[in-house]
C-alpha cells in the first residue's frame, strides 16, 4: 500500500522547504504519494458586510482558482516531471485543523510543515500553525526549520 505524506504549502519559502523535505522522504520511502494541501485561512465566524456576503461565492471560487494557478499547478507539474507521485487539495478553514483532517481522511503517515511563514504579534500570542499542529495533530508531524 502506498504511503501518503501531507505537505502544508502556502506559496511561501517555508512551504517550499516543507516540500523539499517531503521529496527527500518520498524518495527514501519509494512507493509514496505527496499530498500537497493549500489552506486558505477562513473562519465561519468572521463578521462580513451584506455586500461581501453577496459576493462571497464568487470570491471563494476566485481564491481557489488563484491558489491553483499560482501555487499548486507549477508545483504539481514540477513534481510529476521529477517522477514523483503527487496530488493536491485546496481548502478553506483553519490551517492546522484542515491539515489534520486531510491527514486522517487519507490515512497519511505524517504531516510535513515548515516554521517561519508566520511572524508578528498574532503568531506570538496565538501560536503558529506548526505549534498548533504539534500539540493537536492525530498523526506524526515533522516541522522543518
Amino acid at each position, binding site marked *: 500500500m502506498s504511503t501518503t505524506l501531507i505537505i502544508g504549502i502556502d506559496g511561501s519559502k517555508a512551504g517550499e522547504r516543507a516540500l523539499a523535505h517531503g521529496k527527500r522522504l518520498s524518495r527514501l520511502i519509494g512507493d509514496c504519494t505527496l499530498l500537497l494541501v493549500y*489552506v*486558505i485561512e*477562513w473562519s*465561519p*465566524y*468572521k*463578521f*462580513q*458586510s*451584506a*455586500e461581501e*456576503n*453577496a*459576493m*462571497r*461565492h*464568487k470570491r*471563494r*471560487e476566485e*481564491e*481557489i*482558482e488563484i*491558489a*491553483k494557478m499560482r501555487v*499548486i*499547478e507549477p508545483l*504539481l507539474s514540477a513534481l510529476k516531471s521529477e517522477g514523483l507521485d503527487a*496530488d*493536491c*487539495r*485546496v*481548502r*478553506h*478553514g*483553519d490551517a492546522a*485543523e*484542515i491539515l489534520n*483532517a486531510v491527514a486522517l481522511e487519507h490515512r497519511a503517515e505524517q504531516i510535513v510543515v515548515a516554521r517561519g511563514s508566520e511572524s508578528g504579534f498574532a503568531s506570538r500570542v496565538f501560536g503558529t500553525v506548526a505549534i498548533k499542529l504539534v500539540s493537536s495533530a492525530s498523526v506524526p508531524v515533522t516541522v522543518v526549520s
Partner: protein
Amino acid sequence: MKRLSLLGLWALVSLAGTTAFALAQEAEPAPSGIDAVVNNIFGLSTGWFVSLIFAPIPGTSFPWIVLWLVAGATIFTIYFGFIQFRGFKHAIELVKGDYSDPNDAGEVSHFQALATALSGTVGLGNIAGVAVAIGIGGPGATFWMILAGLMGMASKFTECTLGVKYRNEYPDGSVSGGPMYYLTKGFEVRGKKGGQFLAVLFAIFCILGSLGGGNMFQANQAHAQLANIFGDFPGWITGVIFAGIVFAVIVGGIKSIARVTEKVVPFMGVLYVGAALIILIANYDMIGWAFGQIFAGAFTGLGVAGGFVGALIQGFKRAAFSNEAGVGSAAIAHSAVRTKEPVTEGFVSLLEPFIDTVVICTMTALVIIITGVLQVDPETGLYLVEGGAIVTEGGASGVELTSLAFGQSISWFPYVLALAVILFAFSTMLSWSYYGLKAWTFLVGEGKNKEITYKVIFCLFVIVGAAASLGPVIDFSDAAIFAMAVVNIAGLYVLMPIVKAELNSYWSRLKSGEIKKYKAAGSGTPAAAE
C-alpha cells in the same frame, strides 16, 4: 409595471427635491436657520404619507398598521405550529455549524448571515426606541415588546426561508434576494397574479425605508449624541460629515472604514449588553419588582396616558422598528447564505428578533425601570405624566433617557454609549444602503451609473436626517418601514404554504435521521484539483 416604477421614482424625486432645496438654502442663510427650513419642508412633504400609515381603525385610536403587524405575527406563529419555540434548539445548532457541510467551507456561513443581519437591526432601536416606548407607554410597553419579539420570530422565519429559496443567482456567482424576488417568483409558482405589483411596491417602500429608518433616523440620533457631548450646534454640520464618510464607503469603496465598523460594532454590542448585565446584577433585588411593573403596566397602564392600549401600541411599534420582523429587510441580508435547504436559514433568522428584542431591548428596558429615571408621584406611587409622556429627569427622552439610566450606575458609560450610538448608526446606515440599493436595482436595473445615482441620493438624505428634528424624522422613518411590512406580510400570506411544504419536508428528514450532523464542523473539504 412601468407606471409603478414611475410612481416610485416620482415619490423619490419629490423627496430628493426637498433635499436639493434644503441644500440650496445652505448658500444663503435663512433667518430661521437651515435646520428649521429643512425641518419644515420635510414635515410638509411627508405628512400625508405618515397620516396614511398611522391612520386609526375607524371608531378607535388604534393604528391599523399595529393590528396588521400583530395579526401577521400571530397567524405565522399558529400556521407554523409555534416554530419559534420548537425550532429554537435546532436554530442554535445550525448557527454553531453542526449541520454545515464541510464542502461549503469558505462560503457564507449561517453565523455570518445572522451576524450581518443583526448588525443592520441591533442599534438605535434597542437604545433609543425602547426609551421612546417606555417614556410614552410606560414599563408595560416592555411586555408587549417582548411578546411582539417572540411572535415576530415566526414572521422572520417565513420571510428568510423565502429569501433564500427565491434569490437570484447571477452568472458571476453573486446573489440578490429579498421580498422583491420572492414576491415575483413565488406568486408565479403558486399561479397567483399580482406578485410583480407587490414586488415593485415593496421595492419603492424599501427605498423610502432605507432613506428613513435606515438613514435619517440614524443620522438624527447620531447628531443628538454629538450635540450632547459638544454642546448644541447645527445638525447639517454632522450631516455633511456623516454623508462624507458614508459616501467614501459606499461610492468611493473605502473598505477600511467598513472593516473597522465591522470589527468595532460587535464589540460595542457586547460592551452594551455587558454594562446592562452589570447594572442588573448589581440591582438583582429589584429585577423582580421591575418585571412586576412590566406586567402590571402591560394590562393596567399604571396610570400612564393611553392606558394598556397605549403601552401595547408603543410596545409593538418599537419592537417592529427594532427587529424588523415582517418588514422584509432581513430577507435581503439572509439570502446570501450557501445552503441546500432554504428553511435552515429560516431557523437561523428566528434568533434575530430573539436576540434583538427579547434579550437586548428587555435589558435596556430593565435598566431604565430599575435606575429610577422615570419619576414617580410619591403620594400615589404612580408615574408622573405630562404631555402624554412620563416625566423624566431633565425631560430626557430617546437616547438621552437610556444614557441617563446607564449613567446612574456607571458614571462614564454615557460617553461609551455616545460612541456606540454613532457606530451603530453608521453600521445600520451601511446595511440599509445595501437593502435600498437592491430594491433600487430591482426597479431600475443593474448598472454602475444607476447604482451611483441611488448612493448619492442616500448620502443627501443623511444631511436631511441630521438637520431635521426628531418628530418628523421618527414619523417618516416608522411610516416607511411599516409600509414595507404592509406589502411584505400581504405577500407572505400567499406564499406561506410554500414555506410550510419546505418545513415539513425538512423536519421529517431531520427527525428520521436522514439529515445528520457533520462530525468535524468547520473543516474544509475538496474544493479544487481533485
